[in-house]
């Protein structure tokens, strides 16, 4: 693999890791907000 290859892999990996993490936080936040907004109390812990 050429030098450029390593550089590309590194930058892409970083981008994927950071945005993936941000998206995951967003997903869990949405789920939590939905659960808290629900007037019916949860029956069992998931």
């Amino acid at each position, binding site marked *: 693999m050429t030098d450029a290859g390593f550089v590309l892999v590194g930058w892409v990996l970083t981008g994927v890791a950071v945005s993936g993490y941000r998206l995951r936080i967003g997903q869990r936040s949405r789920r*939590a907000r939905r659960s808290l907004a629900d007037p019916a109390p949860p029956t069992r812990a998931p």
Partner: protein
Amino acid sequence: MPLTTPPPTTSTDARPEADAETGLLRPRVAMVLGVATLAALTALAILGLAVAPPDAVQGDAQRLMYLHVPAAWLAYLAFAVTAGASALWLWSRTRAATWDRLAGASAELGVLFTALTLVLGSLWGRPVWGVWWAWDARLVTTAVLFFLYVGYLALRRIPGPGRERRSAIAALIAFVDVPVVHFSVEWWRTLHQQGTVFNEELSAEIEGTMAFTLWFAVLAFTLLYVYLLDRRYRLGALEEGMERRELDAAIAERLAEAPGRAVEAAARAAETARRRAEADVEPVGGAPR
């Protein structure tokens, strides 16, 4: 939206939060920060991949430095925040749930960026020095740092009373260990007279565009850290609220069961008595089953 004030949390130490979603920053500020972070990272990509010249010795591979160095900085910053927040939690005069939440959020970010640092370091080292790994103080300490805080996160996941205290103490144990690890590994390598080539990466003279890009990268990543920290903190607050609700619901359910059983028992007793009366048999012994 208004939520009912939650009953006292299972940890008797922390003050209960009235609002489920609290953040470190005001929502408007957080949004602006998010936009700024995105812009800065985009600018960094342009600078780092196109504008900055390739290194005289390392060639294009050096462009990974613009990610690896800030990631390492972020990792150590994040763990310092975790240690500070843990200390604040442990000190009774400043104890509050917010510090525990902050410690956890920052540690998670720290582990993410430590992993990134290690991977980027390998990707940088391979083309430049032909090795995926080198046993020098910085790399080994970073690897140990990773495992120290993976352990911390594992401990945090375990629910129950005293969770905040356990975690806070573990964070400080880890933090105190880091300089000891660094010193002992450094001593080990210098005694073996392994002049590691990895030392060159930061002591080399970087000037002009490259230096600017590096500092810009540190700035951009710091913005990223604050932004992600606020997000993760918020999520922590939300999930704590969710846990409290589930706990309350479970308790309420348990309480509801009790009168139900009493009603059932009474119904059974009445049925038995009725059957005996119909069969014209004197109840022997008295009490129905």
